[in-house]
């Protein structure tokens, strides 16, 4: 403390500059509060779901079918099987098409050509199209109209596949773009064709990124109710679907239907169904994060 009387040295001045004035402390606190508010909101939502849902979070939920007469032991088995069937179809439709489109745009297409630019712009736009519009599209072409399969499992799969297709394309492209140019060059220099290079070198190198993006896209589809309301998942279904041409319901639509049903047992069943859906989603999200951290390669 011998320096107090002396004029501050350059070092001391720099240290003093670091000291925060009250206004910027308030600013930093406000920013922190914004983030805290978002996190607290999420925690309240999750805590509410657990607190209200765990009473009925038992085997009845999985074993039994929906019932208005016995809400205290009713389950959502048809919705669980419906979700599995619909998601299976969605995976089979969206993954090959989405990954194929991404490979074309990233590995084959000349991005200076106008038609390729058009495809890119179009995909950017499709990502932000409201989910319910995909329901209208499927209603007009698949449920009724040219194909007219009716309100069955495959219609739900098509609606959700259309919904997540742009997301799958965009995340797959990002994963492919992360693979260094040199790997492709080396493979081509050794005489491999473009497809051999893509199939044996680029795709294996990008597979964890593709898997992460795909799981996140599927977790969006599994919780989506809006387009499925339009393609017939609202019906009160108490049998499990046996094929892609059977009538169906899914978990989010089951939740939507149960909201308007009265009674304390119904409400408990509703929150238990929500808890089940959230558990599935958190498991999928956790798997995506684990995949990203475990297999992410840095070149």
């Amino acid at each position, binding site marked *: 403390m011998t320096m107090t009387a002396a004029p501050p040295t350059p070092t001391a001045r720099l240290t003093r500059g670091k000291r925060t004035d009250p206004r910027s402390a308030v*600013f930093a606190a406000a920013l922190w509060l914004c983030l805290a508010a978002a996190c607290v909101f999420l925690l309240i939502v999750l805590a509410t779901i657990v607190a209200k849902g765990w009473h009925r979070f038992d085997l009845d939920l999985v074993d039994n079918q929906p019932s208005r007469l016995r809400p205290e032991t009713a389950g959502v088995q048809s919705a669980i099987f419906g979700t599995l069937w619909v998601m299976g179809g969605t995976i089979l439709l969206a993954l090959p098409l989405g990954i194929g489109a991404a490979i074309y745009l990233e590995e084959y*297409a000349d991005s200076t050509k106008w038609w390729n630019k058009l495809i890119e712009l*179009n995909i950017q736009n499709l990502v932000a199209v*409201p989910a*319910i*519009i995909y329901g209208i599209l499927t*209603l007009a072409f698949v449920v009724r109209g040219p194909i007219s399969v009716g309100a069955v499992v495959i219609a739900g799969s098509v609606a959700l596949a259309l919904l997540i297709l*742009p997301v799958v394309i965009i995340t797959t492209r990002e994963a492919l773009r992360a693979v260094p140019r040199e790997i492709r060059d080396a493979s081509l220099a050794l005489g491999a064709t473009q497809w051999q290079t893509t199939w044996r070198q680029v795709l294996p190198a990008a597979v964890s990124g593709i898997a992460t993006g795909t799981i996140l896209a599927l977790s969006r589809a599994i919780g989506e109710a*809006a387009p499925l309301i339009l393609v017939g998942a*609202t019906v009160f279904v108490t049998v499990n679907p046996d094929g892609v041409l059977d009538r169906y319901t899914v978990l989010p639509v089951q939740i939507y239907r149960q909201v308007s049903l009265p009674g304390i047992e119904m409400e408990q069943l509703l929150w238990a169904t929500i808890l089940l859906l959230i558990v599935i989603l958190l498991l999928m999200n956790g798997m995506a994060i684990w995949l990203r951290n475990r297999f992410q390669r840095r070149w």
Partner: protein
Amino acid sequence: MTTGPVTAGSLGAGSPPPAGPPIDLSTRRNRVGERIIKVLLAGSALLSVAITVGIAVALLTPLTTFFSNVGLGEFLTGTSWTAGFGDKSSWTDKDWGVLPLVLGTLSTTVIALLVAVPFGLGTAIYLSEYARPKVRKVLKPLLEILAGVPTVVYGVFALTIITPILQDLVGVEIFNNLSPGVVMGFMIIPTVASLSEDAMSAVPSALREGSYALGSNRMQTTLRVVFPAALSGIVAAIVLGISRAVGETMIVAIAAGNQPQFTFNPLVGAQTMTGFIAQVASGDAPQGSPVYYSLFAVGALLFVITLVINAISIALVRKFRQAY
């Protein structure tokens, strides 16, 4: 294929005759498989264009029937919407003014933005300029979960948890636009935050260092240097948030009720465009009925609105990408 060495016969049908030079680099081998694969891949990319065309066709075809019974002027300027009432097969006993639905969408969207923009931007600034990398690595997945909770769950949460609280605080009706608007706002925070953070992280650190060198502190640097430099990206994030709010269906279908009302008052329930589509779809409207056609008319309006919003967002993102 038990023979060890590669013979001419084991190569594909398109391989050159063995009489020529061993490897001929001058001619391209005609690989049919490669070309088929390329066509298949291009086909799956073109499918995305087909989807857009399909959306346009699906929405526009029923419009001819709708607008042969309802005037375009009445649809776009009328202040009463009673499509769900009266005789199911009659066009004439209903009011077809879409403005109440548009106003319902507008009020929930504005409320959602009042929540999402300040909180989202605050979060983005904190993550981009203040948080240490370790903190960021923990918090970003948490925000992803906030965006990943199904909207139908948020709808139930709004109706059964938030609405009773608001009833005590400000006396809202059971179905109102304030509660779904607020919940939707929290749902959109990650959308606004994540894109704004990208925009601010893309600002070169040389700009920040220049600002610090001139003696400004972190707050001044953030507000006067980083924020303006990232502005077009931030606006694009907000615009994308608007598009999410306009298109959101389940939260408003559950918590805002099914009454189309020509009002901006958030304390009462006013059905939104998406809410109407969901209501008609759950009621199993008979094909060919006026209500069935009105579903497509409202859907087309919704699509056009989001298309314009998206175009603005895409243009802004391009602008900020070219900035540095």
